[in-house]
Every structure is written in C-alpha cells, then in structure tokens.
C-alpha cells in the first residue's frame, strides 16, 4: 500500500498519560477477526472508550468534546508495546490520528505506524511530560525538518530514520522499493540457497 505523502501535522493534542499502553488496549484482540484494514477506528481504545452498554465513557480523554478532530496523540512512555498487530495503527489512523508523541515507542508498533502514514515522534521525557500536562495545545510537526513546534515558538527535534522520512514525505511504496531489489535477491538466492 503506498501511503499518501505526509509533510506536516498541525493539530491540537489529545493526551493519554499512562505508560506502557499496549496494543491490546489500542485494539482488543476480539476485533482482529477482520480480513480488512478499514473501519477499525470505532474500536480504537475500545474498552477505555466504550462502556459495557455501548455508550461512550465521557471521562475518557478521546471522548471529550475538545478532543474531537485532534490528530496528535501524546502518550506515556513505551507506547504500543505488546503484539505485532498492524490493526493498532490501522485503528488509530481510521480514528483520525496522524502522529503519536511519546518518550519511547515500541519497535514493532513504530515500524507498523510508519507503513501507514502514522508518524511516531519520540521526544525527551521532560518535553513529553510538559505536553501531557497541557492537553489540547496546538502543535506543528514538520516531517522534513523532523521538528515539533510549540505555540510559544520552542521547537524540538526528534530522531527519524532517513529512509522512513523519505517514505513519509514522498509516499514511497515500500513493497515497490523491495520489488526493485529483485536482481539482488535472485543473486543472493542463487549463491546461498541453491542447497
């Protein structure tokens, strides 16, 4: 799937200060029996967002009126730990998010997010704590510059792999890129896997 290019994200934030938000919390396993990538947004953070009777929990930050339309999630450290389910970024994207900011983001979640136009942003714990303490502020994320700008003008750089950045900026089709490596793959197979 070639993602549409992502160059900037400008949005208010919505905050989940809990640490170690795992993929079972992002989308519980019982919603993984789908054979599609679409329509998972309604189950994003399902058991937090929806009460047993199917009504939204008004206290859950993503259900609050001021969170509607927010595209940047700020979360406690080690966000996305747990399973490899790509349903997690699919659900967050379908819900409307384009970036997740945390002091630490789990490896597989980060890789899956990047393949789905969801930008993982790791900032210093002190900066993340400040963002968590001030939900709803407007941030501007510049993918090319790899910076997050706060309303007061401060800018913080975040690490991003050069290839991942190009993929986001240009909507590079990673499978297409790999298929272009076929001559190398063939040579490798001929040399090492003739056995």
């Amino acid at each position, binding site marked *: 799937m070639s993602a549409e290019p992502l160059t900037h994200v400008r949005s208010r934030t919505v905050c989940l200060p*809990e640490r*170690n938000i795992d993929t*079972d919390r992002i989308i519980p396993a019982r919603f*993984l029996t789908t054979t599609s990538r679409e329509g998972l947004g309604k189950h994003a953070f399902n058991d937090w967002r929806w009460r047993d009777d199917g009504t939204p929990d008004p206290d859950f930050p993503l259900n609050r009126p001021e969170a509607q339309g927010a595209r940047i999630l700020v979360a406690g450290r080690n966000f996305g*730990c747990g399973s*490899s389910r790509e349903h997690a970024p699919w659900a967050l994207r379908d819900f409307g998010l384009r970036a997740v900011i945390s002091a630490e983001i789990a490896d597989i979640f980060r890789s899956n997010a990047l393949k789905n136009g969801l930008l993982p942003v790791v900032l210093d714990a002190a900066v993340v704590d400040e963002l968590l303490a001030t939900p709803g502020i407007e941030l501007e994320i510049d993918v090319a510059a790899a910076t997050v700008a706060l309303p007061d003008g401060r800018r913080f750089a975040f690490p991003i792999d050069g290839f991942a950045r190009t993929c986001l900026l240009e909507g590079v089709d990673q*499978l297409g890129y790999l298929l272009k490596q076929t001559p*190398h*793959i063939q040579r490798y197979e001929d040399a090492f896997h003739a056995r």
Partner: protein
Amino acid sequence: MTSDPTPDIATPDAPRTLFEKLWDAHVVVPETADAPAVLYIDLHLIHEVTTPQAFAELEARGLPVRRPDRTKGTLDHSTPTTQPDADGVLSYYTADAEHQVRTLRANCARHGVELFDFGSDHRGIVHVIGPELGLTLPGSTIVCGDSHTATHGAFGALAFGIGTSEVGHVLATQCLLQRKAKTLAIEVDGALGPGVTAKDLILHVIGAIGVDGGTGHVIEYRGSAIRALSMEERMTVCNMSIEAGARAGLIAPDDVTFAWLANTPRAPKGDAWDAALAQWRTLRSDDGARFDRVVRIDAREIRPTVTWGTHPGQVAAIDARIPVADGADAQRALDYMRFDGGKSLLGQPVDVVFVGSCTNGRLSDMRQVAAVLRDQTVHPRVRMLVVPGSVQVKREAEAEGIDRIVRAAGAEWREPGCSMCIAMNGDLVGPGQLAVSTSNRNFEGRQGREARTVLASPYTAAACAIAGQLVDPRDFLQEHAA
C-alpha cells in the same frame, strides 16, 4: 546488573556476536545512512489473523508468493479448542473467525503454500509447530506476523515478529527492509532451585530490566543457567523477549539443540545433517565479542515468580510482598487487579487457571501440570483449562495418560490452539475474574474484558488450581513428594 559501553568495531576479523553472524549471513543489500538493509528471510510462518490483508495486497498487485516453499501456514489464534460435533463441524466463536480461517485456506491453496489445517498431524500454535517439525533451524532467519516469533531464537535463529505490511513484503520478495538492532547480553549464572522453572526465570529477568528494557535490542541469553535448560525451557525464555520490548531473543545452539533437531521430521538428514551440524557449531558469540549492554542475573536468587500488575514487568516472587505503588501507573495496575500494594498475594482467591500458549504449551509443561494434578482435585471454585500447544503435544501427552490425569482432577483437556492466551476464540475469562495463566501477557482485557491475569509457571498454575487460591508451588510440591 552492570553495563558495558561498546566501541564501534568495523574490522572484518573482529569478534562478532551471534546476532551479528546471523545478520551478516542474511544481508542481501547492506544498509546505508539513506536506506535500511534488505534482509533475506529463510522461513516465513503465517497464521489466519495477520495475513488476509497481506494476501489481498498481493492480489491487488497481481504478485505471486516468491517462495511458497519457504512459507508455512497454520491455524491457531481464532480456532475453537472444543471438539467438533458428530458431523465434524467446528463451533467457531464468530462468523468472522471462521471466515478468517477460510480465507487463509483459500490463500494457501491459491499460492501453493503448505497449510497445517484441521486434520493435519502438524497443526498447532505457530511457535510450537516450527520447532517440533524441525522447520526452525539454527542460523536461519524466521519471521511471522506475531510478536512471539522470538521463541524460535532458542535454536540460534534470528526470529522476530512483523506487521501485516511486512508479511506482504516477505510473501512477495522473501525479504524485509531492516535496520540492524543493538545487542543486549543477559548472563544468567547459577542453578535454579527446586520448583523454579524457566518461566520464573524469564519473569524475573523482565522484572529486572523492565517491560521496555530490551527496546531496540536483540537479547542473547547466556550463562550456566541458560546452558542447563532443556530445549523447551529455552523456548519459554526466548518467547517472552518481546515482553521486555526486545526485537528478538537468542540462545547459541549446542548439543541440547542438536539432539532436539535430530528427532524432528523435517530437519536435514544424512549428509545434509552432517554439513548443517558443522555450520551450526560455529553459531556462537566469539570470545571478546562486544555487546551494547550486558546484564547479569544470579539464578540462585530466582524464586517462583508471578505478575501482580497489568504488564509482564510488574512481577514479584510468590512468597514476597508485592510493591507499594510508586506512581499513578502502578496504582492504576493495582486498582485494576484489585490487589493491595505492600501485601502478599498468597491466599488471593482464583477463579480460572489456564495452562497452554506458545510460552508453556509444550509436552514438558503438560508433564509438570500432571505431576501436580495427579490424584488431586481442582478446587470447586476454579475453572481449569489445559490446552496443548499442538496436535503433536496433545498426542504425546495422551500417550502418557496426561489427559486422563487432567480430566480426573476436574480440569478441561482441550484441542490445540492459542485459546485463553488471547481469548479471541471464545475461551474467555469473565469480567473481574482472577486467572492464573501460563501465557505471556497480563495486559488489561487480554483474556477478556476486565479479566485479571496473573502470569505464572505451570507448577504454580496447577498448584493454584488445586488450592483455589494463589499458593507457593514449592510448598505444594514438597507436600506431595513427602
């Protein structure tokens, strides 16, 4: 615990870690500042949950599976663990679950991929069947759309979980785009005490380094305590590497590994075996190889260990007091679990006991449970499920009479599958119920909405089933040995 910094070593003959050897042998195109490496994948394991969208992507592009011979499928996550009815019909939890199974069946048939379907002697949890068939080989790269793929690292394979987009990449190209991970050596020395198992060891390790202590790293487990483990125990350890955030877990292969493989149907035979063995013996970290980080653990300090919170790093020895909350997250975990910080967990009433999963669903685990359950009765309050990890485990256990011991004790003996580990097939823990589980994740809602999970070894789980409350399995084992 200690840490060593690592200098950058670029000389060709420099000592290498096992991870570096595995990595170097599979690089198709080296990584640069601008692009990740293209890494070759020897074995791609697939199951029904994380593949439908990947096959759909291939269809949309008109692409074939590049190496159907290096791709093997099984059905495990959303499959029922109850017996089929008199007409052979399986009772799926939902129509979607059945549709997912049919979809994998159709995709495998269309692309010529071998599927271990219902009726196959080889069906089972993906991380149980790879090793028992001898598909999991030292020195190979193995991936699966499942984070517990690290299990296969117990054989000295570089094995890790991938997302569904990457499943599509491997189906189409047999390769992945990867950045090289950092290395973390976990050295465990000394002997484990009686009643202390590999599960206690790995829970203790995760507690020591933290639930994110391995992020960005591949762990190599080393030391005398690791060398002393059986193959099945090594799998239990590597299985939970992801619970410390690690990309993968590794144990260098040795005679224990080779003896296991010699008994598998699909490992190389004859001359091919001899050639493979010679190569496998080189698969160890060289003396002097530098790891990015080293952590040392004394095995003698490890006691039967359980989780008290809602992630696998929140652990305590069963006979210790659990910690007082040191912040909002720990307090939230305690509140969810309805436990009091600073108190012992002993005596907490237990509602459900689950034995199974890719962590502890192998024959030795079934034997440990049977050893505790023999001539005993499961407490009337407790519902106990024993779910073998594969058809082969089930058959071997039944040949030893383990199913009869389990049933006679009042527990359920089920068909193979993931079952209550992920609770997407209808095997659920009820809201508020306390489950002692031999699986690998105690996340909120993992075993059912509002289910409370305590992770434990098979000994601990079985002892708790009989007692109807959390107990120290050592007291129990001694009592019955006496």
